[in-house]
């Protein structure tokens, strides 16, 4: 990441280390948590534990990548959880009515970006705050879920079951699912786009200061609409991955997921006011959440609500850290 662009690396050097501190802190935290797990529980050192974290959180990872784009521009997208549920719901219901898998995939992957595009337009053209516009999107998508069906719809389609059950690696030993590979592919593409393309630089510029970006002649409006579309696309992919994972579409699935996603992005070192952060940090943030859940599962005596309390505590620690480093006030 440090060699993002060789020409600008020199100019950035003074703040380079500071920029990386939150990500490095997350990495250190992740390693410490993993070490604690390994020292406390014998089965924790099994590589499959790490793979399972990826398998269980693949969809979360994809959605968090989309959210990173939005937060980098200083916006927020509350609709992701509902869009994930709606995508899973639409695919389940279309498959149930007998449409071919390929067509269902295309339709499901189009809904999220369309909704994201519309929200982006509302935010840019009509000056509606991202919080409110995406809140309306969240209500809309969640309402659509129950509108389609108020009960969970099972998926029996051959393609879906193959994608769900295919094990890559040693089927009896350590393996990952296809979803993990898709999630990692999304991460790589997103990292490339943010670091090496004009669009990626625009995202950072708009998040740093949209007024300056506008005065520099950057396409602020187009970038802003694009990030919500990207987030919608990522949510749609996340929804497909979730339907692979659960082999069903349920109207109340992924409720409150937007909080986990935002928490993962913040723990990953992306600043909520925009302009600073990395996709790699988001990956670490998602892994931290995954490892917390795994630790609590391994412990067995702690209840699920401890997950929320620990995530809240971590959020506080990382925000405080960002404040102390003073990224915003460099």
């Amino acid at each position, binding site marked *: 990441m440090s060699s993002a662009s060789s020409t600008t690396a020199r100019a950035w050097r003074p703040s380079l280390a500071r920029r990386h501190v939150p990500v490095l802190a997350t990495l250190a935290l992740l390693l410490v948590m993993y070490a604690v797990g390994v020292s406390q529980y014998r089965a924790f050192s099994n590589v499959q534990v790490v793979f399972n974290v990826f398998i269980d959180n693949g969809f979360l990872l994809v959605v968090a990548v989309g959210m990173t784009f939005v937060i980098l521009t200083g916006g927020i997208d509350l609709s992701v959880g509902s869009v994930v549920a709606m995508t899973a719901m639409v695919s389940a219901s279309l498959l149930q009515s007998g449409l071919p898998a390929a067509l269902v995939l295309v339709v499901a992957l189009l809904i999220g970006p369309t909704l994201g595009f519309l929200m982006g337009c509302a935010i840019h053209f009509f000056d509606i705050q991202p919080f409110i516009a995406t809140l309306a999107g969240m209500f809309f998508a*969640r309402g659509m879920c129950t509108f389609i069906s*108020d009960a969970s719809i099972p998926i029996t389609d051959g393609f879906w079951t193959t994608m769900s059950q295919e094990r890559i690696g040693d089927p009896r030993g350590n393996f990952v699912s296809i979803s993990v590979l898709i999630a990692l592919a999304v991460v790589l593409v997103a990292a490339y786009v943010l670091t090496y393309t004009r669009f990626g630089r625009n995202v950072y510029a708009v998040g740093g200061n949209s007024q300056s970006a506008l005065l520099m002649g950057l396409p602020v409006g187009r970038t802003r609409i694009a990030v919500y579309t990207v987030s919608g696309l990522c949510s749609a992919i996340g929804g497909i991955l979730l339907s692979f994972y659960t082999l069903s579409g349920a109207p109340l699935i992924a409720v409150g997921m937007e*909080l986990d996603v935002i928490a993962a992005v913040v723990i990953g070192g992306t600043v909520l006011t925009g302009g600073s952060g990395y996709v790699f940090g988001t990956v670490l943030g998602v892994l931290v959440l995954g490892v917390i859940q795994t630790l609590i599962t391994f412990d067995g005596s702690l209840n699920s609500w401890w997950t929320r309390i620990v995530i809240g505590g971590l959020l506080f620690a990382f925000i405080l850290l960002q404040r102390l480093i003073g990224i915003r006030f460099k």
Partner: protein
Amino acid sequence: MNTLTDRFRPLTGHRLFWPALVLVVMLAANTVYRPGFLSVEVKEGHLYGTPVDILRLSAPLILVALGMTLVIATGGIDLSVGSLCAISGAIACLHISEASDQNSLSTVFTALALAFGVALVLGAWNGLLVAVIGIQPIIATLILMVAGRGLAQLITEGQIITINSGPYRAIGLGHVLTLPLAIIIAVAAALLVAALTRRTALGLIVESVGGNAEASRLAGIRSGRIVFLVYVVSAACAAIAGFMMTANVSSADGNAAGLWIELDAILAVVIGGTSLAGGRFSLGGTILGALIIQTLTTTVYAMNIDPQTSLLFKAVVVIAVCLIQSPAFRARVSRRRGATTPRPTTRQPEKEQVSA
């Protein structure tokens, strides 16, 4: 034609006009659909009827939205109110459920005081993060929003605490002078906040802090103290709303109590015409907004539509109200009608074309 629009301009220009119109249209649509909708009757000395129900059910939302209005007026936002409702309700119910006599007034008052105190402390925590440490409000309160749900479940130990306490249930379902007590509490809170902000300089100070915290500090206002205060007030309002919600069902559910009320409250505030950017607020608008949301929910229930599907209607109303209130949208519409082109809105597209 021209004189007619001119005559209506002061009316349509009033910031409460559009929310009030939406509410009236919804009530009218309901009356057409169900002629008995607006009828109110007196039974056993209590008022009954759909309008009374709407008022009673909207009481918690009005309370939360009142606190939220003040927070938003300072340019902040409080996402933690839903969790605070759950925590305060859980503490009160836990204390009452452990008492030997659940109906004794002293037990109920101790429970309320205990829960209220905890809520104030949590509100002070929010205020501390925002005003002293200087964390963005949306993140500072996100911490308590996430962790608060966990805390509420920790208090109830993941169970639903049910209680059988007459005095506590009265908070949600009791009647005083023919009116439901919940309505009276909400109205009293609204009047108190209105008196404190509009009859003293406090409201003006809150607005000036929202407009520009640094400038108000330089003008001699203790901005930090005001910001700290509004989060405590918001937490206090949320705590009372939490009592009402748990009293309504005589049980505390750490997971479900006050779920998404922060979003509804923010919506109510925005529908009421308070800008999320801060710097000005309208308590009347907020109450109208809360009533619109509750009327919408009741309407959807009355039409036998799934409660979750009602979110679809909510989305439509939110977008419609926000678009009507958005200056950019109004400018675009009026330009299309052939009115004079407002200069500021045309500047932006020109600049973008340069880059393309």
